[in-house]
């Protein structure tokens, strides 16, 4: 690697590129300090020229595997989070907000699978009116956001999920969510498969804004 004298100016810098523990220190510090998941690209801008950000992140994931704090992939980047099995101990000392009620979770699932989706469409799928408090709680939690308006009479607001939604539920991508067939334990209906297959919708849904 030291042959590529064009990219590496001095032997000292070449050594720096190759020193994995030093690179791990930088990645570790950056992932600890960042309030948002660290992307390989962002890490690459901090690492010495020539360092492989993906490889460094992979090594860091391995280093923290099984520890109290783990490096997990969230929405295209990497973030340190406490190990899930320690939740019971930590909730003794860390303030935990209330869990979302069932209506809010179902509404969130509909938005996730059918986005962008209007309020009447959500109500149609649930077969029940959507309480204002439910919508408010999802907005307050920053899990859903308006995504323009549908060009139909009344121009209803379209709703979609946010990057915060991915962060909240530890998802890398909307595609991480199970497909509809995986969700339904029953064998698929042989007679009348409905026109719209909700589980496929996220693939054509717009990417959440970063």
């Amino acid at each position: 690697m030291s042959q590529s004298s064009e990219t590496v100016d001095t032997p000292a810098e070449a050594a720096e590129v190759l020193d994995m523990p030093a690179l791990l220190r930088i990645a570790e510090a950056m992932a600890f300090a960042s309030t948002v998941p660290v992307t390989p690209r962002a890490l690459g801008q901090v690492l010495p020229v020539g360092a492989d950000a993906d490889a460094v992140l992979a090594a860091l994931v391995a280093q923290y595997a099984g520890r109290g704090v783990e490096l997990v992939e969230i929405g295209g980047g990497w973030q340190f989070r406490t190990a899930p099995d320690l939740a019971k101990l930590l909730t003794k000392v860390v303030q935990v907000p209330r869990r979302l009620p069932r209506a809010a979770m179902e509404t969130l699932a509909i938005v996730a699978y059918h986005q962008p989706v209007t309020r009447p469409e959500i109500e149609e799928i649930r077969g029940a009116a959507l309480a204002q408090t439910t919508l408010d709680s999802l907005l307050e939690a920053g899990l859903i956001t308006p995504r323009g308006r549908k060009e139909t009479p009344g121009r209803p607001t379209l709703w979609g999920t946010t990057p915060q939604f991915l962060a909240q539920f530890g998802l890398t991508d909307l595609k991480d969510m199970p497909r509809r067939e995986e969700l339904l334990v029953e064998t698929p209906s042989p007679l009348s498969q409905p026109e719209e297959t909700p589980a496929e919708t996220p693939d054509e849904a717009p990417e959440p804004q970063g």
Partner: protein
Amino acid sequence: MQTPPDPDSLLLSLDGFEGPLDLLLELARSQKLDLARISILSLVEQYLTVIEGARRVRLELAADWLVMAAWLTWLKSRLLLPHGSQAAEEGADAADVLAARLRALQAIRAAALWLGARPQLGHDVFVRGAPEDLTQTDRSRLALDMPALLRAYLVALKRGTKGKRYRPAPTAFWTVKDALARLQGMMGSVPDWSSLEAFMPVSETPLQRRGAMSSTLLAGLELARSGLVRLRQEEAFGPIMLRQGDGDVTEQ
């Protein structure tokens, strides 16, 4: 076929359901696990039984429940028709639509459960509680652009020409009218020739003093014209003397 659930037990918790579709799904789930093979007819009958029971106990049932009951009654009448008729076809189609809606809701419910079972940030897993801010804000540079400069110039010019420009506080000058009143008032108490300055008020500034001097001179000339006073000056730029007149206008 399993035995349908006791309608009374469902009746008690009707408020716990989020609308008719929610209840239908619950009925379907208790009837058979496979949503694809449930008997819509039997489901319809169960729903109508529950609603009928509920109406006997509570008259004030939500409109949603009754609208669905009416629609399901219509659906039941179609489903009971012999196969082949157009009305029976309609019923079969409607039953398919209902089954599809129930499956969609079932899928969403499963998705909500799947989401809820994931380790949630702030509930099960936690990010750094006291993050360090490693950004520094440098405000030393100035944001300057020509349009802003030109806008500022035009605003300044507009204000400057609106008559709001800065002026020194106006100086109070001793008017001729003031001087006339003062001269006339003092006339009796001055017997002989006196300098014009003796008839002037105390001035604060040289400018005010010069103003008072000229006003008093003008007042003196005015009174001299009607012979009330006489004025005298011995040489150019010399002191101007004044005394009470005797009405003779001709005297210099």
